[in-house]
């Protein structure tokens, strides 16, 4: 390496020493608030024993809210009964009639096939005056794929 | 979006020109611009193909320059 280049490399890395942490940390800060689960797509998660409510199935998938025997824990069970046309998507909980996922909470991420279990909080408890809805969101193309009232 | 399509078309055009250039260049120009090419094998020629397609404008300039350098001394002797 020549002297000029050594200096340039050092200058670039001095800049990166600022840019990289700023980039990483700002991206960290804008991660949307999560509903409950820390680990999205928990591979080994098992279904809670009681189905609180089974929602009518939609094209390609259906989902249930499950709970344990003393109703202290809640779980969203998501089942793709066909391979979805979008390879991956995220599920958000938003206020009723607000389809903007940025205002909502991230519940979890699904793939085109399979069943998924996400631990959620009591706001997911089914009731006909629930003020929440689920939004199925394709984050690659930034499109709402489906909206279902909880 | 039409701007994207235009940009894409321009890039494709540039690369197609690069492919045509590369065929001629590999046959005629390559050994003129760099003496290290003489006696090198097929592997080397294949390995530089993608680069030729992308950087064809630079190689073309070198090729033209190399041609001038060969012609000029000939003129002096004439």
């Amino acid at each position, binding site marked *: 390496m020549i002297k000029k280049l050594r200096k340039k490399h050092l200058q670039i890395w001095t800049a*990166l020493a600022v*840019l990289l942490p700023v980039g990483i940390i700002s991206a*960290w800060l804008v991660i949307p608030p999560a509903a409950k689960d820390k680990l999205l797509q928990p591979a080994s998660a098992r279904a809670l024993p009681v189905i609180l409510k089974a929602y009518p199935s939609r094209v390609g998938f259906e989902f249930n809210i499950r709970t344990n025997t003393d109703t202290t824990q809640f779980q969203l069970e998501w089942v793709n009964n066909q391979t979805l046309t979008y390879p991956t998507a995220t599920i958000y909980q938003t206020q009723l009639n607000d389809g903007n996922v940025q205002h909502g909470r991230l519940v979890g991420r699904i*793939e*085109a096939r399979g069943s998924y279990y996400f631990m959620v909080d009591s706001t997911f408890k089914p009731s006909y005056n629930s003020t929440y809805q689920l939004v199925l969101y394709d984050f690659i193309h*930034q499109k709402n794929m489906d909206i279902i009232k909880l | 979006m039409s701007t994207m*399509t235009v940009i894409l078309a321009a890039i494709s055009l540039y690369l197609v020109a690069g492919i045509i250039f590369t065929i001629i260049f590999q046959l005629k120009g390559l050994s003129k611009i760099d003496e290290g090419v003489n006696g090198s094998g097929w592997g080397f020629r294949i390995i530089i193909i993608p680069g030729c397609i992308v*950087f064809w404008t630079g190689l073309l300039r070198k090729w033209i320059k190399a041609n001038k350098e060969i012609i000029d001394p000939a003129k002096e002797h004439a």
Partner: protein
Amino acid sequence: MGASYLAVGWNRQKKIYDWLIFAFCVLYLATFVVLTAIFNPDYTFETVLIRATSTLAVIILHVTLSIGPLTRINKKFLPLLYNRRHLGVSMFCIILVHGSFSILQFHSLGNVNPFVSLFTSNTHFGSLADFPFQALGFFALIIFFLMAITSHDFWLHNLSPKVWKTLHMFVYLAYFLVVMHVMLGVIQYETNPVFIIIMLIGAFTLIALHLIAGTREVNKDDVIYKLKQDGYVLVCDVKDIEEDRAKMFCLDTERIAVYKTGGKLFAVNNVCKHQNGPLGEGKVIDGCITCPWHGYQYLPQNGQSPPPFKEKVSTYDVKLEGTHVWLNPKAYAEGTERPGAVISVVNAE
């Protein structure tokens, strides 16, 4: 170079190196596929391939970027540098699979051109959380592509070393783009902090290595030699230089390597004609100064590569007074023969 080009200048060491890269990649990909098949059997093959290749490429990228400063910090890492390009090209091939399959999987189903779809399916360039992270990956891939296709020495010569070095310095931009591609992409949908921590550790390791090695080197360049006489500068004691090795001194604009070999001292320009490797960090092998990076050789007395090679570096005058080594920073034309300085028994003591 005076000799003709080879596709790859393979030798035993490079072959071992390449086999190790290959074995590691295969092992990693296989492990990834098997673990996914066990724990997430529902994932499609494309998804597995996209993730296996992307994570492997990020690992290789970190290794590749740490080799440079590691060799500055400890010479034991030099064998890694020897064939760093193959590591880079392998990384490109791997990440090309990730990029292609991502485009296939996410953008080839509609009726728009997949590349148009890549840039138009998300245009929130003004928002951080919604940023079109795939565009970042795409530009990083383009940089890796340009580097991979110009990795042969032919391009170093024919694009000119300046253009080539500049192009290859874009790897740092590419690295930044990759970090942001991951941070603004998957990590936005993956609240497990493990992934953020991995990215942070990776970035901090690279930053630390480069800053440590970089400041050290720049400081060496900035050493001021006070004692001057008739154009000569007092640089060190003859005992400071080991036999068949050199010490480097930056007196003017560039470092000069002062070699001790066969009872004499010789001074040549430190910059190797191949890729500007530091000749002063090499050693004398078979009577030739041998570049530590890729093994180009030069004769100590005249800075010329032995035939059939044609590289030449500048030479300088050195003299000995007692045990003091004096160096004249005035460069002779490349390849000029210089007598060197004879080390007498008296000097050596």
